[in-house]
Each structure stands twice: as structure tokens, then as C-alpha cells.
């Protein structure tokens, strides 16, 4: 048996923390499962473990330093190592060909062999299947359900939770490619694409609606109906609204991550009757105050 301090490469005066660090550094390097083909390394790993069992425990270390016990300490019970099982037929459940699958693309004997090896994986988990699903904005807000027809002709019923955002991925467990043996099927991953609603302009999570109003509604104010993504609401146009006035409908915008929603802004746009109404033309012509009012006064130097 070697001196446990030498095995770990620490001074006999090393602190508990230094001993732990030295052990971790060595163990990480020597662990049999990280060196499946190295039989000699295993002996070294055992030594390191035995040394750490002695020095990692304050009481054991004190007794060793005092000469009460020798280097052998207590042998750690035999541990099962993954590397001894990974090569078994059942171990194939975990083996991955991600490191060399591209070598199997050719049509040479070597590629044949690789493909055979890949097929031999008894418990290959099914692959995840990726889909993209465009939905209207209204459906993203209210949620709903859709039937997706897959390339193979199968269908998949997808429940869309209320408040999904563009780019969000829904995972349907077990709806991917079937696996072999114990692998289990993969998942279906459905990326949501929220289609723009042509009635609104998007500003981040906010929606802007251009709402035509009559001159009478703009001057005197009044109640009008305005579209929201999921229906209509009645809003009050304040008396004296100009074109461009924005009225906020709180929480009526597009869904946000985290469940809240942006706002909808109704932008007032005054629309005059066409052709111009003679009475209106006469009124504006005779309107003295209108001649004095310069809406550009503040915009010019």
C-alpha cells in the first residue's frame, strides 16, 4: 500500500478542501467509465479512492496520522461499473452512433458494416419529429385545437394552449417516431408560427388598428365599435380627437411569454365624405376661427 498523501499528490499538511480537490481532479481523469478500455487505470482509480476514503474523513485521517490504522483503511465495496455493461446487448439501449453515423452514408463494405451496427441497437429510442404549424393570431390568444395531417397520412390532434407566442414549440410526448425495443417513441415537436392579422400593424407585442371615424365623431366624440383580434369592443372617441390620436385598449394585444398580453392601440383616422359635401365646404369657407388655426405652427421654426 502506498502512502495515501502520495497517491493523492498532496502534502501531509493539506487542508480537507485541498484533499477533496486533489481527489476530484484525479478521479475525474481515472474513473473507469470515462476510460472504458483502460484496465490499468482502474487499479490507480481504486488506489485514489482508498486514499480518499482515509483522508477525506476527518476522524479516519486523524487515526491514520496518529498511526492507529494503516494505509489500507476500509476497502470500498465493489462498485458496478457502467463500462462492464455498456457492451452487452441491453447496453445498446444507450449506445449512440452520433460520433460516426456519417461514415455509414457510403456504399462501401465499411459503410455497410456501420449500418448493420446501427440497426443492431436493440433499444433505439424513436426520433423526435419536427413540424411547423401556422395559426391565426386570434387562435394564439384564445387557444384551440387542430388536427395536423402528417406526411405519411396519419393525423395528430394538437391542443393549442391560450397565449402561445410565435416561435414557441409544443411537445407532444411519445408522438414522434416509434422506437425499437425498450427505447420508446420520440416526441413530436410542433413549432407555432403566429400569422399576422392583416387588420393590425404589429409593434412588438402591441397591435395598432387604424380606425376610420367621421368628422362628426372626431369633433363631438362618440361611441364606435372597433375590432380586436378576437372580436369587437365598443370604445369612446373623445370629443376633439385628431387623426393620429391613439386610444389604448389595455391587454388586447398579442400574447407574450409568461402569459400576459400586449396592448391594442386604436389610431383615429378622420375620413371626409366623398365627393365633398357642399354644406361642409360652405361651413368651412365661412368658418373664421378655422382661418387662424395653424396646426403646423409648432413644427416650423
Amino acid at each position, binding site marked *: 500500500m502506498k502512502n495515501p498523501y502520495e497517491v493523492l499528490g498532496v502534502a501531509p499538511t493539506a487542508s480537507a478542501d485541498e484533499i477533496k480537490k486533489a481527489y476530484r481532479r484525479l478521479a475525474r481523469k481515472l474513473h473507469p467509465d470515462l476510460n472504458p478500455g483502460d484496465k490499468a487505470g482502474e487499479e490507480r482509480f481504486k488506489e485514489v479512492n482508498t486514499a480518499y476514503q482515509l483522508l477525506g474523513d476527518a476522524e479516519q485521517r486523524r487515526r491514520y496520522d496518529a498511526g492507529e490504522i494503516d494505509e489500507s483503511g476500509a476497502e470500498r465495496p465493489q462498485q458496478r461499473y457502467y463500462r462492464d455493461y455498456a457492451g452487452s446487448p*441491453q447496453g445498446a439501449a444507450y449506445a449512440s452512433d452520433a*460520433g*460516426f453515423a456519417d461514415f455509414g452514408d457510403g456504399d462501401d463494405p465499411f459503410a455497410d458494416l456501420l449500418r448493420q451496427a446501427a440497426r443492431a441497437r436493440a433499444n433505439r429510442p424513436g426520433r423526435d419529429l419536427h413540424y411547423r404549424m401556422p395559426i391565426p393570431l386570434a387562435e394564439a390568444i384564445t387557444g384551440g385545437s387542430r388536427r395536423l395531417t402528417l406526411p405519411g397520412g396519419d393525423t395528430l390532434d394538437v391542443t393549442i394552449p391560450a397565449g402561445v407566442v410565435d416561435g414557441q414549440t409544443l411537445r407532444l410526448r411519445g408522438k414522434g417516431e416509434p422506437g425499437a425495443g425498450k427505447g420508446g417513441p420520440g416526441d413530436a415537436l410542433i413549432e407555432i408560427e403566429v400569422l399576422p392579422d392583416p387588420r393590425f400593424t404589429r409593434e412588438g407585442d402591441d397591435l395598432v388598428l387604424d380606425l376610420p371615424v367621421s368628422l362628426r365623431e372626431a369633433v363631438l366624440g362618440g361611441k364606435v365599435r372597433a375590432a380586436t383580434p378576437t372580436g369587437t369592443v365598443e370604445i369612446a372617441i373623445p370629443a376633439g380627437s385628431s387623426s393620429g390620436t391613439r386610444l389604448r385598449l389595455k391587454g388586447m394585444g398579442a400574447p407574450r411569454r409568461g402569459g400576459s398580453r400586449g396592448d391594442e392601440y386604436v389610431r383615429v383616422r378622420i375620413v371626409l365624405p366623398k365627393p365633398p359635401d357642399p354644406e361642409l365646404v360652405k361651413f368651412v369657407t365661412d368658418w373664421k376661427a378655422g382661418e387662424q388655426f395653424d396646426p403646423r405652427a409648432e413644427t416650423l421654426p
Partner: protein
Amino acid sequence: MKTIDLQAFLAESRIDRVTLERWIAHRWIVATEDGERIALNEVDAARACLIRDLTDDFGVNEEGVDVVLHLVDQLHGMRRMLAGLRAELDATKPREPRD
């Protein structure tokens, strides 16, 4: 490969049930659900010991375990492939002519 009873599995790999379920959710361990029972075998037990060594003894965090297992799985995939290659070469090796 022997299947292992859940209690024996937890005792041997020195983890609790909640930890095991988390590892299964991470797909570090693939368990078949046999009705209410989780079916595990010796391969799974050995793998659990490795994961426990990584997290408890080596200070590897969960993201790190993902990376390590992925690489270990690739390494074993590679070893299987090489073993298959060796078997194939042995089978096709021309006999030494005798004199």
C-alpha cells in the same frame, strides 16, 4: 440481463426515488413502465452509479452530466462498431496457406 427490483436499485445506486425519476425525465436512464412498476436492469444500475459518481463525487452539474453521458454513449457506440468490425475482419480473414 437481470431486471432489478426498484428498492434494490435505489439501494445499490445510493439515490432516492425522486432523483431516479428526475434522471428518467432527463432520459439519462431509460426505464420501461411495466404497468405501475418501473422496470430497470443491471445496465441501468451501472449507469446510475456512474451518474451518481459524476454528480456527487466529481462536482459535475446537470448540464455537465448531459454532455458527459452523450460523449460516453458515443464512445460505447464507437466501441461496439469497432468490435463488429473486428468480428467481420476475423470472419473474412484468408486462411494461412499450409506447407
